[in-house]
Structures are given as structure tokens and as C-alpha cells.
């Protein structure tokens, strides 16, 4: 299905959703996200957007190597993290900074990674977005898409065997779902009865490639049956639906009921990355259509329906976000790059002699040059 029919799909009853077009929902489902949490989530979405805008600008100014927005997909990225336990590992794809924000990963820690400076927990080893925050139960992101899916499956097995009652959640894009790793991860998860949730952010595009070229399947959730695991397709701009689907899946998995595949339909509102120009491959109009359906618009409408959000509050939230982001940028940009010697660390737990020789020879070369 292409993007047109993806839009249609958002309207069809087969797709599960909770929020109505006017922002209302069934009264008994409000408790899925209590008011205070809803406000916190809304603020995070705003923060996410400010980061996207400001950091994209930074990238254009040549002050950041690379950037990727997640604007439009926050109901999935924040909602999923919200629905999990704090110690449930989240295996990110790359477009899920919202999950980090809900987990309260410090803004500076995020920015240090994006810059790859001396304070970056990754020691400047990876491109922007390749986060790892072990303390926050965020394992290491890698570029090759889909590779995190079997990791989440394995972690979910470990959780079962070690009885930690953790549930591992892995994000991937609908593009990544075409990789072999998707297949083996989902199939293994069924066989291993892993405590794992696979969450496809189906945002319609993989760089320039629309979903219609990615697969002829009508739904990716339908793949669950072929692995004997639970599968559900939801409206990924509907925060409450995301929370419910992830919570249900997590509860089932935690109780030994097996893994689940969730396909959340959403839309990549921005470019693929700072290196991309989406006007080359998709109509402006399509993007505009989604603005009404995007995560912020819908969550805001819902908060207003609840009567807990006003324009004034929103204004001050935007201002707070701007301030936080400004501070983050100025504090992190100052930091120096990692020291040269660190280049040779962490390849192995202890540096082997052959590598130490390479290090010594190189450092000697640097010293000799200075003289």
C-alpha cells in the first residue's frame, strides 16, 4: 500500500484507534494516560520539536555533522517508552529521541552524543543518533537497519530465563522490516517465547522509497501470524492507542504470554535526514494532509478536550523548551573532542599487544611531528 492508501487505512475500522477526530475518547479510556502524564508527554513532544528545529539549523550551519528529525512520530516514540517499565530495555532504531526524553536521559548526554565530544558516553565513536545509555536501559544503536531486532529477541529470552520480568522493546521502520533480520528475529521470538515487543514505526517512507515498493503486503502486522505471535496494527498518531497496545503487549509478554508485533501507522513529516530533500520524491500536499493527523496536533486536541491545556500553557512550554535546548547547545558545544589515545580503547576489554604497538607507533609519530 502506498501513502495514499496509508492515509485511508488510518480511517478504516480495521486499524485500531482510541482518539476520535475531535480529540475525544471513551471516558473509561482516559485513565490509560492520567492528566499529569499527558501533560508531561505533551511537553516532551514540544521539546522534541524544538530540538528538531534548532538542531537542524545547527546542522545547516555546519556545527553538527548530521541530523534526523522525528517530528510527527512522537506519539509512538514517547508513548511506547511511557507504556513500559523503566528498566525495560528499548532497542532504538534511530528516530526515537522521544523515548530518551521520556526516560529522562539528560539533554546534555544526548547532545554530547550528537556532537561526539569528550563527554559523549560513546567516546565520539559513532555518528549522531547512535545512542547508548546503559543506565537508562538503552542499548547501543547501530546504522545497519533491523540488526537490533534479534538483539531484542535475545534480551527478551534472557529476561525470561533470568526471571527479571523485563520486556525488551525494539523499534524499527517499515523499511527495516524488509531485512532478513526482521524475519529471523520474529521467528526466533515465537520459538523462544521471548519477552519482546517489536514495534514498527510505519511512517510510509524509507528515504525516498514508499511503502508500496517496500512490500505488496496490505499490512505488516499480518506477518505476525506467520511466526505464531500476536500482531496488531494501530493508529500511530493516537497516543492512547499506542500506550494501550504497548502496555497490553508488555503485560502479556511479562506474564509469559509471548512476544508481539505492533505496526503503528504514522508519517515521517520531515526529511529522512539532513542529507535528504523529500520534495524530490513526495508531493507537498501529502505532507500537508498529515499535519492535521500528526502526534502533536492530536495529543494537543485531546489535552484540550480534557480541559487541561490552554494556549498560554503551550506558549510557556515552548519557551521552556527553547531555553533548555539553548542551554544544552551552548554547554555541549564547548567541550573538546575525545583525546587521540582513546581511539585504541574498547576494541577489546584489554588492549592486545599488536594493537598497543599500533597505538605507540602512532603516538610517537604525532610527538615527532610536533618537534
Amino acid at each position: 500500500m502506498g501513502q495514499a492508501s496509508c492515509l485511508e487505512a488510518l480511517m478504516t475500522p480495521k486499524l485500531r484507534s482510541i482518539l476520535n477526530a475531535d480529540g475525544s475518547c471513551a471516558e473509561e479510556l482516559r485513565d490509560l494516560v492520567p492528566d499529569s502524564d499527558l501533560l508531561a508527554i505533551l511537553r516532551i513532544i514540544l521539546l522534541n520539536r524544538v530540538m528538531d528545529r534548532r538542531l537542524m539549523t545547527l546542522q545547516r550551519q555546519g556545527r553538527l555533522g548530521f541530523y534526523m528529525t522525528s517530528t510527527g512520530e512522537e506519539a509512538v516514540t514517547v508513548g511506547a517508552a511511557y507504556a513500559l517499565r523503566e528498566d525495560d530495555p528499548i532497542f532504538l532504531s534511530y528516530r526515537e529521541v522521544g523515548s530518551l526524553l521520556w526516560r529522562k536521559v539528560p539533554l546534555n548526554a544526548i547532545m554530547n552524543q550528537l556532537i561526539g565530544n569528550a563527554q559523549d558516553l560513546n567516546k565520539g565513536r559513532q555518528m549522531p543518533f547512535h545512542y547508548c545509555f546503559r543506565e537508562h536501559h538503552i542499548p547501543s544503536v547501530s546504522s545497519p537497519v533491523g540488526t537490533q531486532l534479534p538483539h531484542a529477541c535475545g534480551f527478551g529470552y534472557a529476561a525470561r530465563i533470568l526471571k527479571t520480568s523485563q520486556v525488551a522493546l525494539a523499534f524499527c521502520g517499515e523499511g527495516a522490516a524488509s531485512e532478513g533480520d526482521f524475519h529471523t528475529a520474529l521467528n526466533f521470538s515465537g520459538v523462544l517465547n521471548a519477552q519482546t515487543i517489536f514495534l514498527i514505526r510505519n511512517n510510509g517512507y524509507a528515504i525516498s522509497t514508499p511503502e508500496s515498493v517496500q512490500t505488496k503486503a496490505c499490512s505488516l502486522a499480518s506477518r505476525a501470524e506467520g511466526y505464531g505471535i500476536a500482531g496488531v496494527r494501530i493508529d500511530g498518531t493516537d497516543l492512547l492507542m499506542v500506550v494501550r497496545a504497548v502496555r497490553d503487549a508488555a503485560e502479556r509478554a511479562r506474564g509469559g504470554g509471548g512476544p508481539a508485533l505492533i505496526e503503528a501507522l504514522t508519517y515521517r513529516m520531515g526529511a529522512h535526514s539532513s542529507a535528504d530533500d523529500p520534495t524530490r520524491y513526495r508531493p507537498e500536499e501529502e505532507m500537508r494532509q498529515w499535519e492535521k493527523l500528526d502526534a502533536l496536533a492530536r495529543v494537543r486536541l485531546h489535552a484540550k478536550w480534557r480541559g487541561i491545556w490552554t494556549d498560554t500553557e503551550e506558549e510557556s512550554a515552548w519557551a521552556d523548551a527553547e531555553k533548555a535546548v539553548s542551554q544544552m547547545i551552548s554547554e555541549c558545544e564547548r567541550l573538546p573532542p575525545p583525546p587521540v589515545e582513546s581511539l585504541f580503547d574498547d576494541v577489546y576489554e584489554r588492549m592486545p599487544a599488536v594493537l598497543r604497538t599500533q597505538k605507540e607507533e602512532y603516538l610517537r609519530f604525532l610527538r615527532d611531528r610536533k618537534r
Partner: protein
Amino acid sequence: MADLVQMNMIQALNNALDIYMRREATAIIMGEDVGGFGGVFRVTEGLQQKYGAERVFDTPLAEAGIVGTAIGMALGGLQPIVEIQFADFVFPAFDQIVNEAAKYRYRCGGQYGLKMVIRMPYGGGIRGGHYHSQSPEAYFAHTPGLRVVIPSGPYEAKGLLLAALDCPDPVVFLEPKKVYRSVKTHVPKDYYTIPLEKAALVREGRDATLVAYGAMMEVAREAVLLAEGEGYDVEVIDLLSIWPYDLKAVLSSVEKTGRLLVIQEAPQTCGVAAELLAEVQRRAFTRLRAPLRRIAGFDTPFPYALEDHYLPSKERVLDVLRKTIEF
């Protein structure tokens, strides 16, 4: 003489593909985002518009599928030209390349051969970190049945790609993405080929032989200029075909100079430089005046923040040249 046009490497590759697609009706181009979008580096730009979506098309995001189906297309009479978006992402397709494509002709006693080219941008220098910088040529050179080719500039890119496309064997064609837009040179407008298995003698010299390929040719050239300033006269060879390669050219140079330095960006251990050093020291042993040397990426994953330290630099090359010549 043929008409010359100024082209960067992207344009040269695009031009080669265009010429070939026009000539061979069975040639098809496939890969992630290579269709209407023209590829993330724009190498296939305009080709879908020209040759239609049946011959130039986007695939699902799955490298094993891209190479695997391409093999089947070759068996079925098409000539696939495959793009892997970055060389770092070729590994999901590794089994299809090393166990299938590489061995196909051999395993069936020559009943079938696979005429196909697998193109991919490789190498560092664009701040791509672990996964947008790797140089996997040694994996493929260690795999009998594959040809591995790496151009260093626009002229080489067009001539080698056209030669690879005419070659009946599967060719892994690695494109130094750092060079994609960094230089423009005069390139003949029309069809021409640079023969596979032949190295290019780029500069004659007496004191040492410097072998490089791909983006490292630029480093080699710069280092040799610095060396010249110090009074060293260095011969430079652009390897071009990494496997099977032009041992003869390297040997006859080293027999003259008695000294060899090979540069590669890939991690040092078991790389292409190791192969050249091993073979040359055996075959030119009595002519050697100094230990054969190599400068390579360190045996660490490719870094992000410190990539300038990781990549062989002209200063390091000069340093080793000096030590080799003064040995």
C-alpha cells in the same frame, strides 16, 4: 581524439551507466532509492526517467534480497547492475556474494556465469563513523571468483565501470565516496574502457614505489609532492584492480626502486597491503633495499570524531617514505 568533458566521479559513473544502458537492452539497475530519486549519491540520476521503471528501480530495503534476486536475474538473461547504498551495508548480502555469486561459475563447471556488477560507495573521510566509512575490499579479494575494482578519479571510474560491465564475471565495484564530488577532470564523452587486472603507473620515480588505490591515491599524490620537496623521487602506482591485480606492474617497479609502501584505509590486518607485501617480498627478495611497508587503518572499528587520525595522512606517508628511503 575523443571529445573531453569535465566531470566529477558521480557524473562519470552516471555517464558510464547511461552509455551501457543504452547499448544493452538487458541491463537493469536496482538498489535502494536508485529509481526516481537517483540514489542517495545521485549516481543513477535520470536513468529511470530514460530507461523506465522496469529497468531502473527501487528495491525493498534488504541487501541480501538485492544481490540474491540479481543473481537470479543474471541466470534468467538480464544483466543486473546493483547498488548497495553504502559498502558498510553489504554484509547482510555477504552470503549471497561469497557463497553464491563468487562460486557460481566454478561450482557448475562453467554451465552458467554471472555477468553482474555490484556497485557501492566505500571509505572514510566524510565523517560517517562506523557504518558509513568502511573499506571492505579485502573481504572480497579473499573470495575467489569475485573481481574487485576501485577507481581513484572520474576518468578511472568511467573506464573501469564500462570494463566491469563488459566483464562476464561478477565484479564488486567500490567507489571512493570521498572522491565523488571532490575533483573534476577531463573525461572522454564516448565509450572507452580501462582494462581490468591492469594497474596504472601514475608517476615514475627512482627511490621507492608507492602503491595506493581509491581515495588513498589523493593522499599518495600529496605525500609524493611533499617527498619531492625533500628530494625523494617516488614512483606511484594506482592499483585499480584489487583482485585479480597487476602483480607484474608492482614487481617491475619494486625491482627498480627496491622499496615499497602500500596505503589502504581498511584495517591493517589481512588487508590488501599485506597481500602485496607478502607477494612482493617473495618475488623481488634479492632486490629489496628496505623493509616493505604499509600504512593502513588501525585495527579498530572506524571512528567518528577522530577519523582524521584513523585515516592514513600524507604526513604519515611522508614519514614512512622517508624512513624507507633512508633505511
